[in-house]
């Protein structure tokens, strides 16, 4: 509690929002289990006590769909960020440590990937297996690792050239010790900040692809896809569009506010 009280207001708000979204993602699918079950007799049924958001154009529970879509987005984004951060920072440290040819080759590849906007990489991957969870994951992770690589490499070079590391080496400590005691404490805060940014990017890319119709395919419950599907019914039941919009905006807001505001661009 004392830690929370010390935080600026926007980060407290961010944690609160994040907790709400996580609650929806974890408890939601447990309370409203089946996002695909149709009940055409209850076409566009109004909200009730059992179904707080009513039913959609096919009589599916909107609450169940939103909850399952939230779980999917958060899960996929977390997976992407973990893989990208792991790959990127390992290669970054390797590049800084070895230097020479390794460094040149890795930097060349990174420059190439950097010239290809992330969304384009994800689009090519989504063409490989339309609606495939695995290919989307691969595309998103491959689009993101370069950021971690560049930042880790730049920071590691400074740390590895510092007198502390030289002293440790002269005292006979091995690479494991240097990574654990010198690199990791320097790198971890930066990696965490980048991870919150990366989560937001991945969630955004997933919903954008779903919205333009080349991401996950129906009947999957996905935030962007839900908006497109519900748009023709906007005048009758705006809640069908607004529910996924609200969840998406709140999730992104939480991830943005988590960082110090000066960094927010």
């Amino acid at each position, binding site marked *: 509690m004392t830690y929370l009280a010390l935080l600026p207001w926007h980060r407290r708000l961010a944690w609160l929002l994040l907790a709400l979204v996580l609650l929806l993602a974890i408890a939601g699918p447990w309370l409203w289990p089946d996002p695909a079950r149709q009940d055409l007799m209850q076409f566009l049924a109004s909200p009730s006590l059992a179904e707080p958001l009513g039913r959609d154009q096919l009589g599916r529970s909107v609450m169940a769909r939103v909850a399952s879509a939230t779980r999917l987005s958060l899960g996929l984004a977390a997976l992407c960020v973990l893989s990208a951060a792991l790959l990127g920072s390992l290669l970054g440290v390797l590049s800084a440590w070895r230097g020479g040819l390794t460094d040149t080759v890795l930097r060349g590849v990174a*420059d190439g990937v950097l010239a*290809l*906007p992330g969304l*384009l*990489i994800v*689009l090519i991957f989504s063409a490989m297996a339309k609606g495939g969870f695995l290919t989307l994951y691969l595309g998103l992770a491959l689009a993101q690792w370069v950021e971690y690589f560049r930042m880790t490499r*730049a920071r590691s070079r400074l740390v590895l050239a510092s007198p502390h590391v030289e002293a440790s080496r002269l005292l006979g400590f091995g690479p494991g010790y240097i990574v654990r005691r010198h690199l990791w404490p320097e790198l971890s805060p930066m990696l965490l900040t980048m991870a919150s940014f990366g989560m937001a990017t991945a969630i955004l890319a997933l919903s954008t692809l779903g*919205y333009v119709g*080349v991401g996950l395919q129906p009947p999957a419950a996905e935030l962007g896809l839900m908006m497109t599907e519900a748009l023709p019914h906007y005048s009758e039941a705006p809640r069908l569009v607004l529910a996924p919009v609200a969840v998406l905006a*709140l999730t992104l807001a939480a991830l943005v506010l988590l960082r110090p505001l000066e960094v927010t661009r």
Partner: protein
Amino acid sequence: MAALTQHGLARVLGQRLIQALVVSLLVATLCFVLVQQLPGDMAFRIAAGRYGYDYVDAAAAEAVRQELGLARPAWQQFAGWLQQLGQGQLGQSLVTGGAVLDEINHHLGATLQLAAASVALALGLGLPLGLASGLRPGGWADRLTLLWSVVLRTLPPFLLGLMLMLGLSVQLGWVPAAGHGEDGNLLLPALTLGLGLSGLTARIVRDSVLAVVQSDYYRFALTKGLSPWQAFWRHGLRNIGVTVVAYAGVQLILLIEGVVVVESLFAWPGVGHALVHAVFWRDVPMIQGCTLLLAWLFVLLNTLTDLLCLAIDPRGPAEP
């Protein structure tokens, strides 16, 4: 001095040329993997494309396989793929049958028009607001642009576009919701993209203005008796410019990604829209062509940014 500039020029162009080559190789590789990944027999699909699905049989597919060398090992096919690209052949669209180059040529104008309109809007809004925020940190403009940039971060381009569409077009009926060729069609897409970029631009300008105004040399210029306008003109403008241009170049990635999203959203017939369509129909030559074009556009814009930076500050960027 001239030699130094020339050296900087050569370095910038060389680096960006290598980057363009690496990115082309990357796109070609991804697209080659994409072709290999497609379900079904490639020879059969090409034969079906030529003769129609009703007239194709195993013999026809085999003939195509021999003719195009589809039975070769993958690395030989890959070499052939790269060779074709190196000769500037982008192939034919699998959907329309037209040459990819012509198709893209047809879409490029619309994309450039949209991009130019959005950048103009973003600069028109972002420069004055950023300047006002930087000259008076903590003032109303500063707080407004901070709020605006945070709101925009939580409102992705397609949501902003959706809201503008529902607000300005469906509710108020001021502008057509989507399409191309009528008056006012450009407004919604350009507004979506331009507003999206303006928040970022304003914050970048604000940060660099603040850094310059608080620096020692700027304070000294004021202390020695220059008027605020003289100090800004002589000592501020160039130093602010170089940071703003350098940052803006990195953020152009948002412009390229935004073009893809916004064009699909508003049915604006540009390269991004064509790309999303091609992905939907798995039209690999079109995917490769559009991706290459957008990537080259990005590299080209980055080159121009580098050159602009070099023109503002002939010393060039500090060595990494």
